[in-house]
């Protein structure tokens, strides 16, 4: 049944926009009603899933605004122009280094494999995702947790190909760093 299959994903995506689980549940219920109410107007130009999630995103955004939660939606479409380093610049040799400019001065350490699948490690990852800016959290949640394609994410969040990739890369880079901070 679609409802069961999509429900947890819908709640997760709604939680990107609204502050609490119960608000997210409400947003999802409202979304189902809107989806069902508009089903006969669904034109099949996108997949039913993409269409339903687009309705969810709109519903969640409206709800978030009503709740007075200010999310920089504009930044969903426009990642800050200031480049964010994937790795602390201090960990590289200077650009004018004579033998290895821009090379690692402090390369990534080996991660202990036995601790990777531990419950604590999962918690560290979940916390790192929670701590991301909303736009990065939205993209990594949909791409890497929910397993959506880049096209599905771009359609649901109305992002360009490049912006989707920039946000995904920033999110992944930060999660990798927190994994290293925790394990190494």
């Amino acid at each position, binding site marked *: 049944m679609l409802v069961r299959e999509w429900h947890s994903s819908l*709640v997760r995506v709604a939680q990107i926009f609204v502050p609490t689980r119960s608000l997210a549940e409400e947003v999802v219920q409202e979304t189902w009603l809107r989806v069902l109410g508009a089903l006969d107007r669904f034109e099949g130009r996108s997949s039913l899933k993409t269409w339903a999630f687009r309705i969810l995103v709109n519903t969640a955004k409206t709800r978030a605004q009503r709740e007075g939660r200010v999310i920089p939606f504009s930044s969903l479409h426009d990642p800050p122009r200031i480049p964010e380093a*994937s*790795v602390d610049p201090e960990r590289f040799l200077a650009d004018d280094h004579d033998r290895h400019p821009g*090379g690692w001065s402090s*390369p990534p350490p*080996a991660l202990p494999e036995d601790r990777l699948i531990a419950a604590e490690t999962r918690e560290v*990852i*979940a916390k790192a995702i929670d701590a991301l800016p909303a736009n990065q959290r939205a993209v990594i949640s949909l791409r*890497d947790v929910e397993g959506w394609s880049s096209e599905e994410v771009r359609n649901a969040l109305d992002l360009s190909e490049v912006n989707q990739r920039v946000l995904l890369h920033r999110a992944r880079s930060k999660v990798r760093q927190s994994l290293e901070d925790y394990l190494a």
Partner: protein
Amino acid sequence: MIDVEAFSCQELVELVTEYLEGALSPADLRRFEEHIAGCDGCTRYLEEFKLTIELVGALTPDDVSTEAESELLDVFRSWRAQSAGNQPES
């Protein structure tokens, strides 16, 4: 002018998602792979980046709580009742 300079490690770490998404130009793809082939630090970085993606993917989306599910069923019931009520009588 074609830039034929090799990537530095600091440049390479910014390109990993582009690499994994298959979005690098053929020339950049070659530079990326040549760099990785000769650099232990970046090889490890790439491995850890892929591992991160795998571990993120292993997070389980929350299961539907029974309470949420029954609320949802109520929503459906009222929707069905409402739409049945709206049907023109034929």
